[in-house]
């Protein structure tokens, strides 16, 4: 008998692929406006893959960064609006970006959730995946569409269209 030599665990790879496949099957790419209350339901733990280097001066620990961001979001209020975008840049990989906070948060969604799953947050992971899917299905995108309509009336857009002709 010997220690099994593995480059990565088969299980975490499988969990990652299944989560990404599930999200890909339910949601296509998109941009939505949500309030921070919903954001915290989708990402109950905000900082796992947030680039901590940008939070200079704050202890580099998971908990203190997490509580710092939560505190910041709580101060903005649950009705504060942020924009989230979802894209599949490589295969099934699902990348979520959150705009409208002090800094842009970027999550490789499946990777983020798999790490949390391994860290012992099973129920939280399942719940937050379902939250994202449910939200994306029901989102009306009204503000985004309105903004896009306004943008279409600008000179920038007109010139861009002309350059394509």
């Amino acid at each position: 008998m010997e220690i099994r030599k593995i480059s990565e665990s088969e299980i975490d790879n499988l969990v990652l692929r299944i989560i990404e496949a599930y999200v890909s099957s339910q949601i296509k790419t998109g941009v939505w406006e949500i309030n921070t209350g919903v954001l915290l339901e989708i990402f109950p733990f905000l900082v796992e893959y947030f680039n901590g280097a940008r939070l200079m001066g704050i202890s580099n620990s998971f908990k203190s960064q997490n509580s710092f961001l939560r505190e910041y979001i709580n101060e903005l209020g649950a009705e504060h609006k942020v924009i989230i975008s979802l894209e599949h840049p490589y295969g099934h990989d699902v990348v979520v970006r959150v705009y409208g906070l002090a800094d842009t948060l970027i999550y490789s969604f499946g990777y983020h959730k798999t790490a949390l799953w391994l860290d012992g947050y099973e129920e939280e992971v399942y719940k937050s995946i379902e939250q994202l899917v449910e939200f994306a299905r029901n989102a009306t995108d009204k503000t985004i569409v309105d903004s896009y309509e306004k943008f279409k009336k600008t000179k920038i857009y007109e010139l861009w269209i002309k350059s394509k002709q």
Partner: protein
Amino acid sequence: MDKVKAVKTLRKLVNERSLEKVGGYIKNLLVEFLKEHQNYLSSGFYHLWLAVSAKDLEKLLLSNIVVKQWGMKEKDGVVILSWYLEIYPKNPLSSTKTFEIRDVEIFVRRHLIYTSSLDYIEHLKRAAMRGKVVEVIEALETLFRLIVDEVESRTSEKFVMLRFDRFKKTKIYTDGMVYLKL
């Protein structure tokens, strides 16, 4: 490992305030353990999962980091800890099975975040210098026991499979699997 002898030697080195010697001695104890179990090993690196209870986490002197800083949570009574172990042979050209150990490195890491890792020997060295000599030796004893247990009973795999079996019952698994097969 002779605990009494190990505590005595480590305490002597700590009293000499020699950081290098303290680190070297702790590493040496790990090398001795690996030599004793060389039938488990080949040279190179290992990603090793260990299922660790809250009590063992305390004994490993990792509770503060793993639970409080990294935010890992106990599930089914254990935390699954990811370790990185690298064994360097004296002669790089020797067979991976029959070799003499030149050096070892051991890190505890956050799952899938390879930039967040803790040099475990360095961690124990600092603890020893703070006067936790007995605790450091007990931490090593616990680590050795857990490695042997993992190799002989595949404990962590059993716990991860428990989680995976629960995952299989979710809609995410069934729908995701179907989509993967398409």
